[in-house]
């Protein structure tokens, strides 16, 4: 039996929370927003041709695994990443690593997670959690979404690690192995901000970043006419679910990113970043308002301030705000 002295802390976003908790286990103090910012987690894309649960995909973050990989690399931390072909190897390797006294981050699918709230049970393969010990067939799990620490048995764990479908985890496990004694946050933060700014305003493709928000706004105006009221409201609901539901800490990660900018202002000693972080906070509140009015629309309360045109205008406003913010952030040095 192995049970490490791992401190479970809840987090807004599963992957940055897991990364921050894993690093904190080695007494490397780093907060969740910091990981998210350095890992350049903020993103936007709307892909109407890629359907998830019968509706177009809207994403507010980068691909899974990127936040962990980018943030640790930028900080000079050596990590190990594994993928496996068959469940048995994956589980054996997990046990070996735990025996060495290392807590392990896992990418899993959420559908068969027994402790997960039933409301969230869908085939979402980008969830992350930490296993910090085992006793024969029982594994001790710290899931940043859940309030208490939880347990899972061998079969279930093997199953969720080999969930199928888009972004299949393939038993992916990861953990830091070597943390340098002296870490300079400054270059890492600057690099992370530049990367995010580039993702949001520098990609010459209309479905990504600020342009993606405008594109979604344009699409939204057509939904009711093209798809009929039911499907339109379902599509809108899907956007809102991606924005608010699982592990975004609200407003599609905009709050978390604002908190990161706020922290970065202290570390870099640049007070203009604090002003921008407040702008980001205002912007996040705007997103919140959007999701609030949108959800009223989903309940079919036909007021003019909940119509698709109104919501689309709101998105345009948000896009303008974000463009302004990232134009300023891109000039950081």
């Amino acid at each position, binding site marked *: 039996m192995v049970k490490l002295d791992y401190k479970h802390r*809840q*987090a*807004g976003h599963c992957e940055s929370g897991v990364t921050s908790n894993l690093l904190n286990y080695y007494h490397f103090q780093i907060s969740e*927003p910091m990981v998210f910012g350095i890992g350049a987690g903020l993103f936007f894309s709307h892909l109407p041709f890629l359907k998830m*649960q*019968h509706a177009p995909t809207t994403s507010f973050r980068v691909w899974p695994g990127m936040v962990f990989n980018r943030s640790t690399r930028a900080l000079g931390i050596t990590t190990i990443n594994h993928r496996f072909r068959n469940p048995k190897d994956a589980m054996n390797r997990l046990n070996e690593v735990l025996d060495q006294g290392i807590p392990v981050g896992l990418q899993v699918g959420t*559908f068969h997670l027994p402790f997960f*709230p039933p*409301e*969230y*049970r*869908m*085939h979402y393969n980008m969830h992350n959690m930490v296993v910090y010990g085992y006793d024969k067939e029982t594994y001790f799990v710290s899931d*940043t*979404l*859940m*309030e208490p620490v939880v347990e899972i048995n061998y079969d279930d764990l093997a199953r969720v690690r080999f969930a*199928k*479908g*888009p972004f*299949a985890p393939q038993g992916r496990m990861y953990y830091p192995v070597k943390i340098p004694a002296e870490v300079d946050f400054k270059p890492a933060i600057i690099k992370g901000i530049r990367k995010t700014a580039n993702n949001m305003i520098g990609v010459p493709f209309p479905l990504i970043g600020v342009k993606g928000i405008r594109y979604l706004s344009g699409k939204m105006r057509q939904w009711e006419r093209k798809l009929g009221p039911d499907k339109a*409201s*379902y599509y809108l*609901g*899907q956007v*809102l*679910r991606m924005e*608010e*539901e699982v592990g975004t*800490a*609200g407003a599609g990660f905009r*709050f*978390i990113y*604002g*908190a990161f900018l*706020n922290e970065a202002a202290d570390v870099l000693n640049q007070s203009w970043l604090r002003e921008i*972080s*407040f702008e980001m*906070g*205002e912007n*996040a*509140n705007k997103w*919140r*308002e959007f*999701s*609030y009015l*949108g*959800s*009223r629309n*989903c*309940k079919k309360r036909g007021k003019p301030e909940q119509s698709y045109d109104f919501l689309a205008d709101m998105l345009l406003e948000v896009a303008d705000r974000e463009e302004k913010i990232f134009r300023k952030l891109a000039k950081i040095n």
Partner: protein
Amino acid sequence: MKESIDKSEHPDDVPGYCYNRELFYGFDKERGFTRELSYQNQSNQVIIRQSWDALEKRLEQVQEAARSGNVSPIVYYMEKMLMELPMLSAYMGLNRLLVRWHMTPAGFRRLKPPMLERYARLFEITVEELKKPGFMNK
């Protein structure tokens, strides 16, 4: 954010998901960025519910189609497990075209017991239930 947003009137809402608190970040001008544990707010509950309502609607349609002999029960159970064709074929380790064939009543009738067993295990039901789902008798 306006104050009225938090204290919205949702008299007809049954509270849905409220047994696990999550961490939320927030912002206002006086306090700056905040972190707090709370349940999903009402407007989020609405959109969470919406997806489950949509699923139920889809299931009813599929039941109707299965009863009238247009599709096989596999389609029903696939929808019930929130799967789509590519995912089902990945879980079964079968070609998509083959799975699509099994989704037709003719293809389903010709399924051999071992294959039925595999589908049943994936859907977490018995072979009997797979062959004759409860809603077929209505």
